C-alpha cells in the first residue's frame, strides 16, 4: 500500500448534513405519496401522517443511532438508502394502496395478497433493527474473516434451501423462494452476502498463491498472458460448477448465478490484480452458457425473448395466441419485457407523474419490473435520480474499500459495493433490454422482506467499515517516553 496516505479519509463527522439529507429523502417520499393520492383519488392519502411519522421516525432514529455509535461513518450512505427505500415504498403505495379505494370485502383481501406499502414499511422497521444490531455488535468486521468455510457452507445451504421439497417454492418460474410461516423469502439474497464474506476471507489467505504462481504463455518473445496453475483453478471451478449446475440447470435462477459469478470474478481480480482470471472466468461461464443453450429450455426462452422480443411469435400477438406451434405456444412470451419498454416510452423525459400512468399494463410490475413503473411515472428524470443514487452508493462503498487499511475489509467493502452495482445492473439491464431478463431485485427499492433486509445488512456493514476507516487514529494517552497504548 504505497499510496495509503492519499486514500485516507479525513475524520469529519458531518452528521448534521446527513440529517438534512435524510429529511429531504423522507420529504421526497411523502411528496410522491401525496401526488399519488391527489392524482388517483383526488385527496390526500388518509394514512399520510402514519407513513410520514413512521417512516420519517425510523429514518431519523437510524440517523441518531449512527450519530452515537458510528459517528465517523460516511454521511451519504444512510440518506441514499432512505431515498431508495422511500421511493420504493411510495411506488408500492401507488401500485397497491391507492388502487384499493373502491374495493371492499373479498376483492380487497385478494388485492392485499400481492403486496402493499405498509408491508414494506414493516420490513423497513425490522431491517433497521437488524441494521442497528450489526452496526452495534460488529465492532470489527475482520472477525468475520475467522469463519470463511462456515460462510461458504452457509451460502451453499441458503442457495439450495428452495430445492427442499415442502419448503421451497417456485414463483414466476424460478425456484428461488422458501415459504416460512406464510412469508416467501429469497434465501439467495443472504447467500450473496455470506459468499462475499467467504471470498474476502479466502482470497486474503490465498492471495499470494493466486496472484504469483503462474505459467506464462508466450508466442516467440511476445507475452500473451500469465495463466494460473491448474490446481489454483480449483476455487473457480467449484464456483463455476455451482453457478452453472445448481443455479442455472436445477433452479432456473439465472439472476443469482450471474450475480454470484460476477462478484466472484470482481473479487478475485481485486485480490490478485490479474486479468487472466477474468478472461478464464468469462470464457468458462459463457462457454457453458453456449453449450447449455440447446439443452436448457428455460435458458433458451430467456435468450429468445431478449434478442427477438419484437417478433410477433415471441411477443404472442392475437394471431399466435391460440397457436401451439408458435414460440409462445409454450406459455413464455416477451410481453412483460416489451410492455415494460412501452411503459418507459410512455413516461418519456418527465414522466406522467405519480399515479398518472398506467403501470398495470405491465404484468407483475410490482416485482422485478417496478423500475418500469418508475420510468413511466417519474420519467427519465426520476430514473436518472434513482440510477445515480445507486451508483453513488456503490461508489461510496468503493471509497470505503480504498480508505480501509486491512486487506480483509478492503476485499469485503469492495465486494459488497460491487454487488450493489452489479445487482442493479443485472435487474435494470434486464428490464431495459441491455441483457437478458434474469430476475433479481433492485437494492433497497424492490418489494419484499428478504431483498430489503439484505440491502440493510449491506448498508450496516458499509456504515461500520466506513466509521472504522474514517475515525481518527487513537491518541497516545501518556506523554512521550511511556509505552503507547492503543485502544481497539
Amino acid at each position, binding site marked *: 500500500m504505497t499510496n495509503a496516505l492519499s486514500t485516507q479519509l479525513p475524520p469529519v463527522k458531518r452528521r448534521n448534513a446527513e440529517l438534512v439529507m435524510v429529511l429531504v429523502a423522507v420529504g421526497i417520499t411523502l411528496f410522491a405519496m401525496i401526488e399519488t393520492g391527489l392524482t388517483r383519488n383526488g385527496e390526500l392519502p388518509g394514512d399520510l401522517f402514519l407513513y410520514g411519522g413512521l417512516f420519517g421516525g425510523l429514518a431519523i432514529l437510524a440517523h441518531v443511532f449512527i450519530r452515537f455509535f458510528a459517528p465517523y461513518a460516511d454521511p451519504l450512505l444512510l440518506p441514499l438508502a432512505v431515498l431508495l427505500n422511500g421511493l420504493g415504498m411510495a411506488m408500492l403505495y401507488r401500485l397497491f394502496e391507492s388502487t384499493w379505494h373502491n374495493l371492499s370485502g373479498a376483492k380487497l383481501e385478494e388485492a392485499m395478497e400481492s403486496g402493499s406499502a405498509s408491508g414494506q414499511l414493516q420490513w423497513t422497521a425490522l431491517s433497521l433493527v437488524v441494521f442497528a444490531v450489526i452496526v452495534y455488535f460488529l465492532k470489527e468486521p475482520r472477525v468475520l474473516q475467522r469463519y470463511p468455510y462456515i460462510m461458504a457452507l452457509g451460502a451453499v445451504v441458503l442457495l439450495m434451501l428452495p430445492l427442499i421439497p415442502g419448503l421451497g417454492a417456485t414463483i414466476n418460474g424460478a425456484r428461488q423462494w422458501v415459504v416460512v410461516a406464510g412469508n416467501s423469502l429469497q434465501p439467495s439474497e443472504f447467500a450473496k452476502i455470506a459468499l462475499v464474506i467467504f471470498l474476502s476471507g479466502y482470497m486474503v489467505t490465498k492471495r499470494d498463491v493466486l496472484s504469483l504462481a503462474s505459467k506464462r504463455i508466450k508466442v516467440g518473445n511476445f507475452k500473451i498472458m500469465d495463466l494460473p496453475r491448474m490446481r489454483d483453478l480449483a476455487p473457480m471451478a467449484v464456483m463455476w460448477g455451482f453457478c452453472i449446475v445448481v443455479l442455472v440447470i436445477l433452479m432456473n435462477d439465472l439472476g443469482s448465478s450471474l450475480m454470484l459469478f460476477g462478484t466472484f470474478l470482481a473479487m478475485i*481480480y481485486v*485480490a490478485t490484480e490479474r486479468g487472466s482470471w477474468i478472461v478464464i472466468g468469462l470464457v468458462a461461464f459463457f462457454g457453458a452458457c453456449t453449450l447449455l443453450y440447446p439443452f436448457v429450455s428455460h435458458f433458451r426462452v430467456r435468450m429468445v425473448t431478449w434478442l427477438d422480443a419484437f417478433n410477433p411469435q415471441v411477443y404472442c400477438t*392475437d394471431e399466435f395466441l391460440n397457436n401451439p406451434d408458435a414460440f409462445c405456444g409454450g406459455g413464455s412470451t416477451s410481453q412483460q419485457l416489451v410492455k415494460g419498454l*412501452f411503459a418507459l416510452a*410512455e413516461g418519456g423525459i418527465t414522466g406522467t407523474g405519480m399515479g398518472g400512468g398506467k403501470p398495470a*399494463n405491465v404484468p407483475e410490475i410490482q416485482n422485478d419490473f417496478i423500475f418500469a413503473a418508475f420510468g413511466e411515472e417519474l420519467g*427519465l428524470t426520476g430514473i*436518472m435520480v434513482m440510477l445515480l443514487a445507486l451508483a453513488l452508493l456503490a461508489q461510496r462503498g468503493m471509497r470505503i474499500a480504498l480508505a480501509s487499511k486491512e486487506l480483509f475489509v478492503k476485499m469485503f467493502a469492495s465486494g459488497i459495493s460491487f454487488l450493489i452495482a*452489479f445487482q442493479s445492473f443485472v435487474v435494470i439491464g434486464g428490464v431495459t*433490454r441491455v441483457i437478458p431478463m434474469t430476475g433479481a431485485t433492485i437494492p433497497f427499492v424492490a418489494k419484499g422482506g428478504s431483498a430489503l433486509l439484505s440491502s440493510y445488512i449491506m448498508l450496516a456493514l458499509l456504515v461500520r467499515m466506513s466509521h472504522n476507516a474514517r475515525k481518527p487514529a487513537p491518541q497516545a494517552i501518556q506523554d512521550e517516553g511511556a509505552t503507547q497504548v492503543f485502544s481497539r
Partner: protein
Amino acid sequence: MNKPIRRLAVFAMALFGVLLLNVTYIQAIQAEDLQTHPFNARQFADRMVQPRGPIIIGGEKVAYSKKIKNDDKYQRHYENGQNYGHVTGAFTPIGATGLEKADNALLNGSDDRLVVRNFLDMLTGKEQQGASLELTIQPKAQQAAIDGLGATGKRGAAVALDPTTGAVLASASLPSYDPSDISSVTNDKERAANFERLEKDESRPMVNRAFSETYFPGSTFKIVTAAAALENGASPDSTQEAPDELTLPQGGTLPNAGGGSCNGGSPDTLSHSIEMSCNTSMANWAISLGEGKMEEQAKKFGFNTPGLKIPTDIATSKYPTGLNGSQLGQTGIGQFDVRATPLQMAMVAGAVANGGDVMKPYLVEEAKAPDLSRIEKGGGETLTSAVSSGTADSLKEMMIGVTEGADASGPNAKIPGMQVAGKTGTAETGEGANSHNWFISFAPADDPQVAVAVVVENGNASGGEVAAPIAKSMMEAVITQ
C-alpha cells in the same frame, strides 16, 4: 490492492453509464416509435376507457361506444358490420383499421380542434368525448353494390362517387367481415380466434379491395389513353391502324378481344375504338403518343401519386415507366404493369363527368363536436385537372357510345330515361387465369350525379356482362334517392 479497487469502481460506474445511456435512448429517442408500435395496445387501450364518437351513415349510428357493465371500459359496437365494416374499419383493444384508425384523433377527442372543449370539460368534471362522423355513404347505393357483387358469387369491389364533389357514395368490397367479431374488449380468446380465422382465410375478407387492392384496369384504362390522345391534338375522328392482330414493336402479338375485328381490319376512329373497345388501335395510340405523354396523362388522373387519404389510406395506382414499345402498347389497353384501385377508376369516370376535374374523394361529410358544432366539412376540393372540358365532352360522347352505339360493348348499363356513359374492361390476369371484369360509368350523362367503378375478380366473362349490371343498379340507387 488499491489499483484493482479503483478499476473495479470505474467498471461499476461504467455499468451505470450503460444503463443511463440506454434509458436515455429508450425514453428520449426511441419513445415515439415505441408509443406508436403496433404491439403497443396502450395507444388504443388508453382510449378504451373513453367513449369514442359514433360513425353515422344515413342518419343511423353504424359504429358507437357503449360502457361495459361493471367495468370502466367501453365496447365498440358495429351495426350492419358486413355492409359497412370496410368503411368504418375496426377499433379493437390491440389496434384499429379503416376510418377508426385514420380519424382516430377526432373520434377519441384528442384532435387539436377539440382540445379547448376537452379542457373545459375536464375543468367541469365531464368526461372527454370524441367527435361524431357523418359519412357520405348512401345506404341504398351501398346495398346495391353489396347485393350486385354478392349475386355474382365472386370477389370484387365497387365504388360510387359524386363526381362534382368527390363524396364517396358507396364503397363495397367482397368478401366482407363484421368488425364486431374482432373488437371484443372482454373476450380475448374469441377475438383472437376470429382474427386468426379471418387473417388466414385465403379470400382475405379483411382487405378493403376498393381502397387497398390494385388490379389491372384492362380496357377501362382506354379512357386514359383516349384522353392523352385528345389532349395531344387528336379528335374523336382521328384514326389509328386497327388490324385484327397487332404485331408489337419488340415482338409478340396483341389480338382484339375474342380475336374479333374492329373496323374490318381498316384503320379505326378513336370514337369507335372506345365504343367497341378495340385493342389494336388503342395500343397503337399509346405507342404513337409515347411513354411520356401516357404517364403524364395517367398522373393527371391520379396515378403514380402516393399518399392519397380520404382520410383512409388509399393504395397508389401505378402507370409503369421505362417501357419498351411492346410494353407501351400493352399499357394503352390497361395491361402489362398498369395497376389501379377501384376508387382510382371511379375517379377517372368522375373526371370525365365533371368537365375534366378530379375531385378529391372524401368519406366524412361532416365531423361534429359533442356539442353538435361543426368541426370539419368534407368536399369541394379539386385534386387535379385531368383534361380540358372540351376533351371531357368528347370522352363523354364516346362513353355514351359504349352503352348506346351500334357496336356498344356495355349496353347492360343502360338506364331508361337517361343517357349513361360507360366503359367496359376485361383484364387478362395471366396464362390460364380467369379475367377480371370491369365497368366504369357515370349518369345521367347530361347532368352527372354519380360515377362508379365495379370490378369482379376472375369473373371469366366480359365487363359488359358481369360488371355493368352492378354499376347500373348502383347508379339507379343514387339517382332515384
